[in-house]
């Protein structure tokens, strides 16, 4: 018996208070956390609010015994790398769980490798294994377009797609599937797999971050790790972000995280080499301007790959 079926009891309530529902179901809490912990992404937050409102209303309709049908909840998240798709998917799983649309609310994050096998007869068990794990929660397929490889007609990806489509259609109460990937490639993927498009109700596009949003993200990341910028370091970081954004292979928040990791490395080196005895906690947690300025991005080199930008 599904959670939805269990709640479909005779209509006892005569009126519902959506506002109270909103707070009591914990949805308000999730949306607040989303607002506070995620910088920027205004259109995404807006879409999630709308989706939450729809789900709340559907739930209220069900309580009042009005005609209702489990809404299709499968989603697609499109956007460039590092724009927070996985993070939002996690929050979405929590949201759906609190609203009672999935029973457990866990997120199983997979890529093509986890679903598609190496030889004939290997794909179906592999895909089913993952589906089994994801039951009652959310299945997050990152870079979903790799499932479909038109250049190889004997590719086993097609088999995984067929199993996925079948489960997405028949077990809508048990599982929510979220497909994620770059915008243009997902578009082509949906074009060649119309079955997916028609089974996905919510397409959410993740915009790139603006410069000041990336700086706010950098500060948040440092705070969580117990570090902080020296006053002049912040200006250097802003300049770094500005230059890095214009280079190829820029992966938004992920590039920022890597830059910060390297800055911490340089800070550790600097502290170690300066070697003048007593260091205070403040010394240990302050990132100086020179830690960031040493980056090759700022040195004016034109690196070609992510690895070169160290």
């Amino acid at each position, binding site marked *: 018996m599904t959670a939805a079926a269990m709640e479909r009891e005779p209509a006892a309530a005569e009126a519902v208070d959506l506002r109270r529902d909103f707070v009591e179901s914990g949805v308000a809490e999730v949306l607040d956390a989303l607002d506070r912990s995620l910088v920027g992404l205004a259109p995404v937050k807006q879409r999630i609010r709308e989706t939450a409102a729809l789900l709340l209303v559907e739930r209220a309709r069900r309580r009042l015994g009005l005609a209702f049908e489990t809404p299709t909840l499968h989603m697609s998240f499109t956007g460039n790398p590092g724009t927070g798709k996985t993070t939002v998917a996690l929050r979405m799983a929590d949201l759906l769980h609190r609203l009672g649309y999935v029973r457990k609310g866990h997120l199983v994050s997979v890529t093509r490798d986890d679903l598609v096998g190496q030889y004939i007869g290997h794909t179906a068990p592999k895909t089913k294994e993952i589906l*089994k794990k994801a039951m009652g929660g959310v299945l997050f397929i990152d870079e979903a377009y790799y499932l479909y490889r038109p250049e190889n007609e004997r590719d086993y990806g097609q088999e995984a797609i067929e199993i996925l489509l079948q489960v997405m259609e028949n077990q809508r109460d048990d599982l929510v599937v979220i497909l994620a990937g770059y915008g243009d490639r997902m578009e082509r993927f949906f074009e060649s797999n119309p079955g997916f498009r028609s089974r996905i109700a919510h397409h959410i596009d993740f915009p790139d971050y603006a410069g000041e949003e990336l700086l706010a993200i950098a500060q948040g990341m440092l705070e969580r790790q117990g570090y902080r910028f020296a006053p002049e370091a912040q200006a250097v970081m802003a300049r770094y972000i500005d230059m890095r954004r214009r280079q190829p292979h820029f992966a938004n928040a992920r590039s920022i995280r890597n830059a910060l990791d390297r800055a911490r490395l340089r800070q550790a080196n600097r502290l170690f080499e300066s070697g003048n005895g007593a260091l205070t906690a403040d010394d240990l947690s302050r990132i100086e301007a020179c830690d960031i300025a040493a980056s090759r991005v700022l040195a004016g080199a034109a690196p070609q790959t992510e690895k070169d930008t160290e």
Partner: protein
Amino acid sequence: MRVTQGTFSFLPDLTDAQIAAQVQYCLDNGWAVNIEFTDDPHPRNTYWDMWGHPMFDIADAAGVMMELNACRKVNGHLYIRLSAFDSGHGWESVKLSFIVDRPAAEPGFRLRRQEAEGRNIRYTTETYSGDRPEGERYA
């Protein structure tokens, strides 16, 4: 003759919803649920064939039910049982086991008496269906 063994053996057969609820109870306790099947229902036959792998790291009963339905498609004419294994330290054993599927016709057991030395009698139980080779016992 209806074979009874394991938990709930004196209850009528469980419905799918009831099976799912029991499975969910096992999963919530952190037990791994396994699906086993056999065509030899003798009570001393403790080694049933396993369907797939033990299902660790599954959160929801729907996953187990999916696998159970796949097993029914192939072995629906045999005995199928679910067992829940507790891997917790000090337990490491099956905590719950019950039959979820059985053949339409169960011929039952024959009791053999062997007259031994003196006036001793030795008893043996055999399944009637066991006379036929494995794989042909139930239609």
